[in-house]
């Protein structure tokens, strides 16, 4: 039976110290990331990844081929424009190989960022009806994109193989072992920035337009279409400060043996990454609780 609390006063005090499984309060603790709950919902994460993958190729004619088409054509375009027309240095590497290395890595970051930045809007329907740790959604985006990234990486390897057989010297070296770290960094950066933007867009819609535009600008401020060594002296420090630059440079250095690698810049980049990821998670966590009221 339902009872009025006032009449139940004695009982209430009695029960005051019982353990409750669920506690719903106005403000959660800022640092309570509910990781235990996220862990409980890990199956959902895999199912969402599967859904993204299945629905992606079910709705298109060319299916998984799309995974290849986009980076392939971008590489061709870049080779033509930046390599042939503008004549920007590729540090002695064959143009297609140089650009594809940059594009493959860049795409993973960019996709994580753009998809995460619209996570509230894209999932408003589900978020408005059911509770689950919201962090699952951005995490599933990062993992989904990882599949796409893996596929594109295979294409990059194939290209490496072709050039190797044609006699190009490829200095695959020990720094390639840093690759897992680079993936984690890119994922965290994309996730962190994406979550900051997603949190802001629930209130200020106009930021959405800034994202696609901003990502493009950011690409030119990163060493995707040119090597760091070719950047003008005056701005080189600025480009080097960009946490994405050491990631791309290290990626190229490990696989192709060309690029500016330094432990210092990679460490700084990792530090910035952790800061951004932490800030993103905290902001996301704060907004997540009430976003449905404003969306």
């Amino acid at each position, binding site marked *: 039976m*339902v009872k009025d609390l006032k009449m139940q006063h004695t009982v209430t005090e009695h029960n005051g110290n019982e353990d409750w499984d669920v506690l719903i309060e106005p403000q959660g603790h800022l640092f309570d990331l509910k990781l235990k709950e996220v862990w409980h919902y890990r199956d959902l994460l895999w199912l969402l990844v599967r859904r993204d993958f299945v629905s992606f190729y079910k709705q298109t004619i060319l299916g998984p081929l799309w995974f290849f088409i986009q980076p392939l054509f971008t590489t061709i375009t870049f080779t033509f424009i930046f390599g042939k027309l503008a004549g920007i240095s590729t540090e002695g590497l064959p143009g297609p190989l140089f650009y594809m290395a940059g594009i493959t890595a860049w795409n993973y970051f960019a996709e994580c960022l753009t998809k995460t930045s619209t996570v509230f809007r894209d999932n408003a329907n589900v978020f408005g009806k*059911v509770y689950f740790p919201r962090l699952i959604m951005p995490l599933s985006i990062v993992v989904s994109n990882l599949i796409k990234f893996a596929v594109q990486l295979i294409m990059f390897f194939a290209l490496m193989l072709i050039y190797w057989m044609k006699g190009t010297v490829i200095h695959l070296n020990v720094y390639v072992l840093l690759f897992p770290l680079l993936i984690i960094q890119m994922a965290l950066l994309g996730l962190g920035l994406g979550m900051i933007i997603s949190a802001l867009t629930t209130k200020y819609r106009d930021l959405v337009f800034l994202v696609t535009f901003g990502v493009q600008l950011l690409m030119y401020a990163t060493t995707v279409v040119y090597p760091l060594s070719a950047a003008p002296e005056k701005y080189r420090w600025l480009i080097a400060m960009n946490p994405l630059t050491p990631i791309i440079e290290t990626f190229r250095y490990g696989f192709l043996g060309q690029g500016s690698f330094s432990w210092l810049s990679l460490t700084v980049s990792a530090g910035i990454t952790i800061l951004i990821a932490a800030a993103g998670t905290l902001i996301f966590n704060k907004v997540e609780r009430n976003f449905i009221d404003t969306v």
Partner: protein
Amino acid sequence: MSVAIKVENLSKAYQLGQIGTGTISRDVERWFAKARGKEDPFLKIGETNDRSVAGSSDIVWSLKDINFEIQQGDAVGIIGRNGAGKSTLLKILSRVTSPTTGSIKAKGRIASLLEVGTGFHPELTGRENIFLNGAILGMRKKEITQKLDEIIDFSGVERYIDTPVKRYSSGMYVRLAFAVAAHLDSEILIVDEVLAVGDAEFQKKCLGKMKEVSKGEGRTILFVSHNMQAVKVLCPASILLNEGKILITGNSEQVIREYLFNQEVICVEKVWEDHDRPGNEIVKLSKAFMHYENGIIPEDGNFDITRKIGFTFEYEVLKNGDIFTHGINMYNNEGVNIFDSHDVNTIIRNEYREKGKYSATVWLLGNIMSEGKFSVNIALFKASPLEIFLLEESVFSFNIIDEIRGDSARGEYILNFPGIVRPLLFWDAKKIN
């Protein structure tokens, strides 16, 4: 028995007005006020929580100081008019949004069904969607695998289980969705008006399942509905909300009586202002009125039992290219859903709608309804798969009266005339001997 849910001083404030335009300036204003050491202008408004007075401000208290406890294993109905705070309470309980003040404590897992089939993806098969939807509702993959056969069996769509759900009829879709929800293993189940979908047989099955869940398995259920019949059947106790506060709590029969008594408002004509037209981004309701065939609107809300009654509503389509239809649900004053009707005969119901204003009228023939008080909901929805664009409850409240002129089903009889409907039927009678 122990307490399963304890709600203490729960309040929720909403900010009215267009969010997105002007909010940056408001935020700047707040920061500025704070920087000068003054009070936050936002909170200042919140101090006066009288809804009628607060009309000039843009803060509305959707719930105000709600306190109640629910014992483990109880099924409790939550009823109240539109805007009474039911949905807000549900949303907070479901953790879709958080309260402004106060707290809710609960023992055990809470599963909420504000909708069935949340997260269903049209491209995935029925089986894949069971897993996805189950996981969204908080089930582990292992649990779902264990219950898979039971779920498929309950849904009654085993033949199509490996077909993408976009090929399902709306009925099948809902069945499958409810089947997943019905097999949730949480200690506390929060159910919104999900029973309003599906055919009568399936509704009965759902109600039965829910009863079984609360009685047999000792789980706690919170049930929000406009269907008083269902509340009565399912929940021994109920809470009546009114304007964000608890009006009464107790025995369902008594609470429902109070609710119906409270509803003594007549409404035969409604025009919505531009900013609060009900609907979604595709379509919005703008106007609704009831009338006789000659266009006259009886302002007193009393309609003659022998005459044809028209229900007309106008809506504006804001986006090109959707197919949807319009319908009404009619309830009597005991909350019995007497009939539903949706457009099955016009051409536009099957057309891709273009932007613009539309009007729909449905005619209720004379000499069908009984005397009494009725209310009508208006709905705009896509029939297959079911997607409700708009469901505005109790748009109309009116009386049907019999002046006993002898031309109705009463004839010359003037005393109490029972029956949910009162059709004027034709008799054959003759002397055979």
